[in-house]
């Protein structure tokens, strides 16, 4: 199974002609993702690596029927507009890579998408990958392999670090998903846990959190109530000082809440196995007796 993206994903790339859009479209194609269309205003009629480009999402949808979209349009150009464009034209899954969308724009966007039933991953996220099936994101495909571990994270390279650790130990991933480092994101830990818990391919879940907000605490209480699969967690930022933003817009301890310590405590209390270091995530997974990957690593 895997969640959200797989062989049936038909991807639209919004902002396909920008530097990032071009590069990652080629990377995704190379990984085997079905990229059906790109959209860049004023570039309609062209193509990139065989992918037809349209001026508008409307045209792209009419011609190519995508069921997912990935957004590379810079935030200071488009803000949340590309997300609205995708959802208003009926695309049910939007993955927003762009960093820097103002938080008040995301407040409105979040609630609008809830009304429309669209699922947004991000913004300010690396996207997601169901190894061997589809990559809708900017992570390195080659470090992943198909397997039984579902990964959900607020981070980018930290996730690759942990994926790499697991892959090296022989554990593949059902889906690895970066939900983004912003204060308001479309899909929370709880949303993803709800999908992993019902995914037959997923035997164990790795949750990679960080300081700021209370998403991990909400995940903890959700896990306690609903999730019967083993969960291993790592929380970054134990040494982060209060009141300072640690790179991610959402990574800030404010008013004394959002510390790594309280998140780790909440997760432990919910029966989650909390690792002290990224490497320990691998140790904990081994101790749980999760199936190692049976299928070969995906082509990079």
């Amino acid at each position, binding site marked *: 199974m895997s969640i959200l993206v797989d062989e049936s994903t038909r991807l639209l790339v919004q902002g396909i002609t920008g530097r990032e859009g071009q590069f990652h479209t080629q990377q995704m194609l190379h990984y085997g993702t079905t990229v059906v269309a790109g959209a860049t205003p004023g570039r309609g009629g062209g193509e990139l690596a065989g992918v037809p480009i349209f001026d508008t999402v409307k045209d792209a949808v009419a011609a190519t029927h995508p069921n997912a979209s990935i957004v590379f349009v810079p935030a200071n150009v488009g803000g949340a507009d590309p997300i609205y464009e995708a959802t208003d034209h009926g695309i049910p899954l939007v993955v927003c890579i762009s960093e820097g969308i*103002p938080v008040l724009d995301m407040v409105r966007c979040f609630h609008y998408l809830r009304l429309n039933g669209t699922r947004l991953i991000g913004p300010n996220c690396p996207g997601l990958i169901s190894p061997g099936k589809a990559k809708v994101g900017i992570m390195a495909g080659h470090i992943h392999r198909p397997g039984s571990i579902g990964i959900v994270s607020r*981070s980018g390279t930290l996730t690759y670090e942990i994926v790499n650790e697991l892959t090296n130990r022989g554990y593949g991933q059902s889906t690895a998903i970066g939900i983004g480092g912003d204060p308001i994101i479309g899909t929370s830990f709880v949303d993803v846990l709800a999908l992993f818990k019902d995914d037959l391919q997923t035997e164990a879940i790795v949750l990679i959190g960080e300081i700021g907000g209370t998403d991990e605490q909400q995940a903890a209480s959700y896990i306690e109530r609903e999730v019967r699969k083993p969960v291993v967690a790592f929380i970054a930022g134990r040494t982060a000082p209060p009141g300072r933003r640690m*790179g991610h817009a959402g990574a800030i301890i404010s008013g004394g809440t959002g510390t790594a310590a309280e998140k780790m405590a909440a997760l432990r209390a919910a029966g989650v196995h909390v690792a002290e270091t990224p490497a320990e995530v691998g140790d904990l997974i081994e101790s749980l007796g999760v199936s190692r990957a049976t299928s070969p690593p995906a082509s990079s």
Partner: protein
Amino acid sequence: MNLHEYQGKEILRSYQIPVPRGEVATTPGEARAIAERYGATVVVKAQVLTGGRGKAGGVKLARTPAEAEAAAERILGMDIKGHLVRKVLVTEAAEITQELYLGAVIDRAGRAVTMMTSPAGGIDIEEVAAKTPERIYRVAVNPFLGLLDYQTRELGFELGLDGRQVREFTRIAQGLYRAFAESDASLVEINPLAIGRDGGLVALDAKVVLDDNGLFRHVQLDARRDLEAENPAERQARELGLSYVKLDGTIGCLVNGAGLAMATMDVVKLSGGEPANFLDIGGGARADRVAAALRIILADQNVRAVLVNIFGGITRCDEVARGIVTALQEMPTGVPFVVRLVGVNEAEGREILSQANLITATTMREAAEKVVDAARRQATLAGARRGAA
């Protein structure tokens, strides 16, 4: 981005929120002149981008121009939690009967802007939240409709205000919310919102934090940034588009990715070291970027050793390695470097680094232990040098 009290008050004033008149002084003489012009008792307040200035002696009442001058004399140049006071706000003192709190914040869990108010103003709202949470009243702002008048009235009546005051409170709360929304703020706080002897409301302090992601559409606000109040290294990093936060330890950290950077700091700490900074160089591996980051790290006199931790996903490790080597050639240093590179072309990258005579490591834990050890030896060396001198 944080604004000074006087900047926050300018914004509040532009939304017709009553604020006592006040002006900024950078010398005691200016403070005296302002007090003379007002012909009234004034308050002289340190303008620093940190809390707790009252307890630190950074706020003083002055009944006469001479007192104002003396107060400014004492406050200007003060160090408040590592912040040098370069400006004071001289503002007319108000006679008040009660202190309220009013603020707008982002409620991350509720994905909404929340208006908060409390009859327990004048003290830190986090203290109120911890000790008497029932004395804080909140309404969530509808993301599509904005703050509605009825919501502010509900808050006003909960505070125990009378009808006239509730109307005034409504105007102030609406002004505060508009200031928040139209400035892309993440926090706007009036504490205290005071009730004067005449029963009217007046904003005696202002705390405004802007959403950095929104600054691109508020050039005039971005221009208010107080460059002098920023840590110089942090300012330089910001101007280069690097995420950097200075800390008090001895191990400089250079990492790609915010999450990995935090995790690296955590592992350094677990290994017995103290990180000197958070630094995320972001994506890409260009030498100039790495060099700029190293320059910032090495400018910190506390740094005894540097840990470079790069996870090359799509980025090739050999490119990153070349970037580091080039940077070090441009900027020779005696500080030991521990480098860990993982990902595409990892072997080639390590090869390049070994030629540059850097300490390499395979795992984060190994890298952290090596850098802590290197720092310790470096400190001993420094101690020996000092002993010899």
